[in-house]
Structure formats: structure tokens, C-alpha cells
């Protein structure tokens, strides 16, 4: 009888074909709750155990918890999106915004803010951002596939993504230059990205979307492994490469657009977390995707804890913290461990 289990998950998998170090995974999953707990307890006056009997502290904790959830969702979404884009585009420089998701979402959000929809219609900002991000991906995909007759090549995808992004940025700048001071502030603040909790319903829907996207990507994980050898080789192996690419792009865009609609544009997470997870645990996507989801979420939550406490009561944009605090740490890891992730 067949045993329906993945032998690679067993510590003593046959042949030593287990692709991942069990000890490292265990350590990772011990660190995650500790770090999350730390960011929950970190306040402007340092780490304090909250007095849950006092209504004020309970309110504060509830607010912090909401932000933690935001951080975990957005960070996980951006990281997984980065993993998928890097795998499909076979390019270490790929990140969630590479195919114009940021440009599109930014343009949608800017218009929603400046043309007054935000004040008039509830949820119009995230919906506009999400819709225009997804629309941009389809536009990029369409442009890229026209030249090549059928499936677009990786290079035409990247190129048209970059160009469409640039066009969107110019349009944003144009709108911003025409805007009032107040509108300008709103747009800039949105674009810097922040994790201030959105409404419960929006969080629920976003969690659903992100869950679907990450789940879908995990589902494709072993095929993404095969796809890193190029579309032709994957085809020879009986994998429907075009469908995997299409599915992967959809998942990646779904989660990235959702993240952007929740928290604006937070840079750096989607680029660097996948690299670090890959450097620590190897490039097998069956592991890379869930570990990046957890790792990215934790990373962003911790960064946000710093962002709201470092110079309290002023809040530093979390994107600044991800880059400033995370950058050097990640460079260190990459320097030592790059060999485990990418060739070179």
C-alpha cells in the first residue's frame, strides 16, 4: 500500500533526501512566538507586563494586537509574493512590486484620495488600490505577451513591468503636483506605508485573500521548484509550465495587492525576507513559502513595534525601519549564507 506522506518531512528521510535541517526549523518556530510576544509588549516606556484589569491598558493591548495582526498579514503576504516572483522570473531582484503592483496600487490610491472618493465612499481607498494593482498586472501581462505570441518571456514581463511602473509613477507625481497640501500629505503618508489597523471587516477579507494566495502558492510549490530550471525543462517533465506561471503570478499579485490595499507601500520586506529564508533553509519552495510567510510576518511585526516606540509619540514609517534596522542584519546573513540561496 502506498503511504500517503511526504518522506522529506521525516527527520530520517530515505537517502538523506530530506531537504531541510529540522533543528533550524525548530529553532525558527521557537523564535517566532518570542518575537511576536516581544513586539506585543514593547511600548514607548519599554517592555511592561500589561495590567489587563485596567480598561486603558486593555484598550492599548487590543490596539497593539490589531497592529500585530496587520504586521503579520502584510509581512507574510509581501514575503510570499516576493518568493513567487523570484521563482517565476528566475531573478533575485524580483520583489512584489516588480510587475507594476506598486505603481498601479499607488495610482489607484492617489486618485481615490485626491478625487475625494475616500471621504465619500467607505473602503474606497483599499478597493481602488487593490483593483488597480490587479488591473496593472493584467496590463503588464498583456503587453508582454503581445510581442512573443502566447506566453510572455520572463524578460518581456520584467521590462514591461518596469515601464508600466514608471508611467504610473509619473502620473502619480502629476496628480500630486496638482493636489492641495492636505491631499498631498495624505498621499505621501499612504505611500510611505503604515500598519495602523484597518477596519475589522477589511482585515477579515484581507486575511482571507492572503490565505488563499499563500495557500495557492504552496500548492504550486514543487512545480515552482521545477520551474527554476526554465519553462522548457518544466515542460519536458510533464508540468504545465504556462499554467503554473499564470497561477503563480495570480497568487503573488493577489497577496501583494491585498497587502498594499491594507498598509500602503512597505518596501524591502518582499525583497529581502525571501532571500534570508532561502539562505537559511535552502531554495525548496515547499518550505520556502510557509517559512517566508511566517518569517516575513514576524519581521514586519517586530519592525512595527520599533517604528511606533523609537521616538514616541511620533511614529516612524515602518518602511524606514524595515530598511534601516533590517538592512544591515540581512546583509550580514546574506554575506555568510548566500551560497545556500543563489548561485554566485
Amino acid at each position: 500500500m502506498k503511504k500517503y506522506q511526504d518522506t522529506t518531512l521525516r527527520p530520517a528521510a530515505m537517502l538523506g533526501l530530506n531537504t531541510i535541517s529540522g533543528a533550524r526549523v525548530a529553532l525558527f518556530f521557537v523564535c517566532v512566538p518570542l518575537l511576536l510576544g516581544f513586539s506585543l509588549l514593547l511600548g514607548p516606556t519599554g517592555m511592561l507586563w500589561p495590567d489587563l484589569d485596567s480598561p486603558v491598558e486593555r484598550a492599548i493591548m487590543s490596539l497593539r494586537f490589531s497592529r500585530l495582526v496587520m504586521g503579520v498579514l502584510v509581512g507574510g503576504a509581501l514575503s510570499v509574493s516576493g518568493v513567487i516572483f523570484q521563482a517565476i522570473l528566475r531573478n533575485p531582484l524580483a520583489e512584489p512590486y516588480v510587475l507594476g503592483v506598486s505603481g498601479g496600487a499607488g495610482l489607484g490610491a492617489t486618485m481615490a484620495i485626491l478625487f475625494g472618493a475616500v471621504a465619500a465612499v467607505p473602503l474606497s481607498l483599499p478597493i481602488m488600490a487593490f483593483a488597480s494593482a490587479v488591473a496593472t498586472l493584467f496590463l503588464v501581462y498583456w503587453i508582454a505577451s503581445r510581442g512573443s505570441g502566447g506566453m510572455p518571456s520572463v524578460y518581456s514581463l520584467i521590462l514591461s513591468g518596469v515601464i508600466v511602473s514608471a508611467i504610473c509613477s509619473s502620473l502619480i507625481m502629476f496628480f500630486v503636483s496638482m493636489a492641495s497640501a492636505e491631499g498631498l500629505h495624505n498621499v505621501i503618508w499612504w505611500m510611505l506605508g503604515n500598519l495602523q489597523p484597518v477596519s475589522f471587516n477589511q482585515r477579515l477579507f484581507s486575511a482571507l485573500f492572503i490565505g488563499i494566495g499563500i495557500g495557492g502558492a504552496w500548492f504550486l510549490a514543487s512545480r515552482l521548484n521545477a520551474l527554476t530550471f526554465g519553462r522548457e525543462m518544466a515542460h519536458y517533465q510533464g508540468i504545465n509550465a504556462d499554467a503554473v506561471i499564470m497561477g503563480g503570478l495570480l497568487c503573488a499579485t493577489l497577496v501583494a495587492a491585498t497587502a498594499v490595499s491594507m498598509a500602503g507601500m512597505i518596501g524591502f520586506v518582499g525583497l529581502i525576507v525571501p532571500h534570508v529564508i532561502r539562505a537559511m533553509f535552502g531554495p525548496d519552495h515547499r518550505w520556502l513559502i510557509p517559512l517566508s510567510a511566517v518569517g516575513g510576518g514576524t519581521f514586519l511585526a517586530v519592525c512595527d513595534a520599533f517604528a511606533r516606540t523609537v521616538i514616541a509619540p511620533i511614529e516612524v514609517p515602518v518602511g524606514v525601519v524595515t530598511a534601516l534596522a533590517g538592512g544591515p542584519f540581512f546583509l550580514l546573513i546574506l554575506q555568510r549564507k548566500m551560497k545556500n540561496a543563489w548561485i554566485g
Partner: protein
Amino acid sequence: MGQAALTFEKVNAGYKGMTVLDDLSFQVNEGEFISLIGPNGCGKSTLLKTASALLKPVKGRVCLFGKDIRSMRQVTRARYIGVVPQKVESPMAFTVGQIVMNGRIAASGFLRGLVEEDFVVIERSMIYTNVLHLKDRYFMELSGGEQQRVILAMVLAQEPRILMLDESIAHLDINHRYEVLRILKRINREKSMTVFLVSHDLGLSSEVADRLILMSEGRIVAEGRPEKVLVPEILDQVYDCELKVQRDPVTGSIHVSGVLENFNGSSKKHKAVHVIAGGGTGIELFRRFSLQGFRITSGVLNEMDSDAEAALALGIDAVFEKPFSAIGEEAFQKASFKAAKADILVVSDVPFGQGNLINLQLAKEAIEAGKKVWIAEGIAERDYTEGKQAVEIVRKLHADGAQAWTSLHDLMKELKADH
């Protein structure tokens, strides 16, 4: 011999606006070791892509074990045919074990993941190709030969019934090449797996293959046992160069080599040839003659004409007339002087008009001097003179002993025979 494994039925295939495979039909039987040979650009890779459904045929049918490839699911097709490409690269640092596992992914389905049996297959194919000891090494760190064996293991893990290799062993050094070939021979023999090797190496192909298929310009020129296909008469034509075919008296293997020295050490004085050309018709003649060591003169050519440029570039002793003007008396006299010193006179398939008709006079002088004259066939189609004067002159020249040539290949052969 087993059943039909791979069948092409009148297949036309190619890329946008360009047909590469031209009405191609052939059959490969199960258990055969086939080698597909042919010059660069003859359609070998296109054939391989068509056989593996990467490219849809424009016309005709490709069948694997009697089933049309178009109506086949990807997974099913991968169980029939596995392809080892020329070079496989992954930008990410996968280990050998992870890479070989890729071979089982399609077969394992979306939901179930790899099971015990899959690992048995993976282990077996790694043992077969002797890469088991490398399982924890990074793929891209391995040598070319090891990488090739790992890819072979990955494809074998698919458990295909036909194995296609696209020039995969061409860049390996001799011991790794033979190591891979021994593996191929062994699976061919033991598992009666059909092996379809696309190769540049004629000698090697003849050594390992039961049957060779020789392709040229999208068609099959010859197929059969190596000694039937690797004969100079066929190869010279396909590769358009002079080849030597030698059989090893001990092993019976066939060795094909090109000719490096044009004159096989002869100390004879190189013959001189005068070429009448124009409009680019002479470039290939110049090139071939100079490769063969002839001394070349040419003219009269008009300056700025592509043949004139080529003659200048190749340092050919040529006579020029001003651009776009009729050949004058002075230039003709010079050319006549040069042509008189040549041993042979060759007329390219240059069109004749009033302006350059006088060049044919050079041919007439050569005939009168008892020299060999070769004139490209089909003068009627490129005679733009009034009253078809060139046709008339050429007719007379032929009557006086001038010979006609149709293909460069034949012309070169004839001239060398004379040499």
C-alpha cells in the same frame, strides 16, 4: 524490434513565418538506439521540440506509441518521452537530491506529494547514473560531466520510455562523454529504453547508434545503419565540404574527419583562376577559391559593387571600372591581360546587360587560348541585353568547349579534380 515508439507523419513545423521541418516522416521503434545527425540549423532541435510537444506541428501528426501527442495530457507525455536539454541551469542553489526529485513532481500529482515509491525510483535513477554520492552537493558546483549525469538522473526519474538527448554530451570531455554513453547504452539494453541522441559527433554516433538519421534543411536525407549513412557521397552534399570517412579495421567504428590541408602536401604551383562576377554573385566563389588556395584574379567589376568590395577585402587582384558605368576599353584591356595569365576562367551567375556584356569577351579569349571555362547555368534568365546577345555568346562558347556549372559544390569538386 519492438512497436513504434515515436512516429512523425508528414510533419511540418517551425516558428512564426518560418517552416523548419518540411514534410518530415520517420519512425523510431521501441528499444532502438537512434542518433540524429545533421549540420547546424538543419532542424534537429526543432524536431526534438516537436517530438516533446513544446512546438505544435503546423501540419501532420506526431505519435508516441501510436497515440497522437496532441490529445495527450502533459503528465502522460512525460511518462513516454523524457528530454535532456543541452544545458540546464537553475539560478537557485538546489542540491543534487532536490533536483533529481523534480523528475517525479508531475507524476506525483498536485495533492499527494512524493511517496515511498517515488523515492525508490529517484534512488534507482541516481544509482544508475552514479550520482548518489553527490546528493547533498550543490548542483551548480559540480563539473559539467557530473551535472549532465544529474540531469540524466532527473529525466530517468520520470521513467520515460523514450529518452531524447539534445547535444547534451557534446561539450563533455572524452571520459565523461563515454561515461554518459555507457549509461545510455546500459539503459537501452537493460530496460529496452528507446534512446534518441541528437549529436554533432558523427564518429561517436556511428559507434553507439543502431541507426542514424541524417537531416538536412528540414528533411531526412538518409537513414539506416551507420556504414550506410556515413559515406562521402552523402555527407559531402549535406555538410557541403570535403570529408574523409575511414573505417577502423579492428573495431569497425567509422571515423569522419574534415580536410585541413587543401593540397595534401602537393608542391604543385597553385593554379590561377579568373572570376567574372558582379552584384554579389562572386563573393562565395572568391571565398571558396581562396580557401582552396587558388590564385584569384577578377574583373571587370564596378567599384562599390558588393563583389568589388569583397575582392578588395580579400586582397584579390581585380580590375575595376567606375561605379554604375559601362565597362570601358581601358579596364577591359587590363582585365584581358590578367585573364590571359589565369589557367581557368569561371563566370558566376551574374546578370548581363549592355554595360558588362564585354566581360564575356574574356571568356571567348580564354577558350581560344585553350583554357578551361566554366559558366554558370541559366544564362537566359539573367540576360538583360537587347536581343539576348549574352545567350548567343554563351551558346557559342559552349559549342567551343566551355562547360556549365550548376552548384558551387560540384564546381569545386571538378576544379579540384583537375588540380
